[in-house]
């Protein structure tokens, strides 16, 4: 039971390098362990037993931006936090992606006021927006699946 059943005794497979690399990137995308507010609790739920993001090769949350590929902005970003968030994003090595989790990170949500950045896309480029306040863990996983689909279509040029 394994890949040899599908391949027979060929031993060699041809594929586009980009496809292979992108496939590898989607299968081991390490998110940064970076919780801001309420959504971080749902992000933890998505990691825990019931939803188990490790099914998608994403169980390894890295506390350091230097080791992570994906920033999940989980929660509201205040004006005091915004420069910190940008610095964390700058510290992540390429290729890197951002998921804006929840309404606050996507557009400010219910907090249309002086303190909250009205959408994290004002400070970092966002690949996928996940709606909800907070989004269910399923919604986050769907967002990440969507990101995987996007990554599969990327070319090397995008990151060079």
């Amino acid at each position, binding site marked *: 039971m394994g890949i040899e059943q599908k391949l027979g005794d060929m031993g060699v497979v041809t594929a586009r390098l980009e496809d292979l690399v992108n496939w590898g990137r989607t299968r081991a995308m390490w998110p940064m*362990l*970076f*919780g*801001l*507010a*309420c959504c*971080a*609790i*749902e992000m*933890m*739920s998505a990691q*825990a*037993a*019931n939803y188990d993001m490790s099914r998608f090769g994403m169980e390894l*949350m890295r*506390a350091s*931006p230097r080791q992570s590929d994906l920033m999940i902005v989980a*929660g*509201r970003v*205040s004006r*005091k*936090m*915004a*420069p*910190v968030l*940008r*610095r*964390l994003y700058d510290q992540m090595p390429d290729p890197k992606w951002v998921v804006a989790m929840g309404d606050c990170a996507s557009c400010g949500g*219910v*907090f*249309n*006021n*002086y*303190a*909250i*950045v009205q959408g994290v896309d*004002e*400070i970092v480029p966002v690949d996928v927006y996940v709606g909800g*306040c*907070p989004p*269910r863990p399923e919604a986050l996983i769907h967002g990440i699946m969507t990101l995987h689909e996007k990554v599969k279509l990327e070319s090397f040029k995008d990151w060079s």
Partner: protein
Amino acid sequence: MTLEPVMEVTVNDLKHLLSERAAEGDTLLLNMGPQHPSTHGVLRLLLELDGEIIVRCIPDIGFLHTGIEKNMEAKTYVKAEVMTDRLDYLNTTGNNLVYVMAIEKLVGLDVPARAEVIRVLIVELQRIASHLVWLGTHALDLAAMSVFFYCFREREKILDILEMCGGQRMMTTYFRPGGLWRDTPVEFESAVRDFLKVFPRRIDEYEALLTKNPIFIDRTKGIGIIPKDKALEWGLTGPTLRGSGIEYDIRRAFPYAGYENYEFDVATDDGCDVYARYTVRMQEMRESLKIVQQALDNMPMGPVNSANRKFVPPPRSELGHSMEAVIHHFKLWTEGFEAPKASVYMPVESPRGELGVYLEGDGGPKPYRVHFRTPSFTNLQAVPWLAEGHYVADLVAIIGSIDIVLGDTDR
């Protein structure tokens, strides 16, 4: 938007906060947070270290300042309630409870008996859920990873019950001034009974993993000692206070929402350390189960909303044949109800301590001032003097034992 650069400061700028040895370069300044897995959110701590030992610990809060209190002034009383969920996001229904009870106190609104019992039941379930997140993350910080998975497994069961009632897992806004949004669904009772059946054994499971675990005991016993008098001096509340052996619980001292009708013990421990606060919270989960059991067994039948149509919208069935109901409905959803020019303070016992709301009305449909006295903010004040003299690794245990939620601290 333009970003201000991350603030860079020198030792000279911080001279008044640091020890004298810092100026000579004797000690090391280390930044912990705001992005750190063990600060439970976006707390920043500036540490002055002598080797591994903390000389000074300076907390920097406000990274999650949301302007909730100010935003609530721009909304009608009912619309502002959705903001309260997002304060302390582990105790969402508890925040709803304190806010709606403050409104009820302000305008003098009655609550039917059934609604009160359901409120208590839901809030106690939420307390267990909050303690489960605390236990999971606290154990995770102390490198006991499996507890985290077990805790979140049970927490999902509670969230399913909340979702059943309020339609949302976390931000239910299920309590409304004068009662509840709606009655509980039929499957509610069996779901809670199932939970009551399995959960006591689950607590035993957690305790089996931690209570006598030598690594856990080494990391928690004798760490972060809060003496009795100091706990009182600093205004600590909740399990942080009860872990110092002081039996003070607002549910018992100033009963609200019918807590005087339930039999439960106020969990205390004389240990004064991180371990004592752990045992208090474990005990509290068992006590909450007792309250849930009593609430479920003695659930009265009847309406879940006050019949006072000036504050509570009429049921949809009335709208078809009663002009008065239509007028009330229209008035409540466009303008909202008016509260008198007065102020109230309403405290409740949240999983973290005394959660109070000060609500001031100006005669109009919007609050003039809403202020939350949040337990995380007050309890966080203890961290600097608790951390002094400990290792950096113990600071993680201390922060965990205070159980802060930064949404609650910064508001």
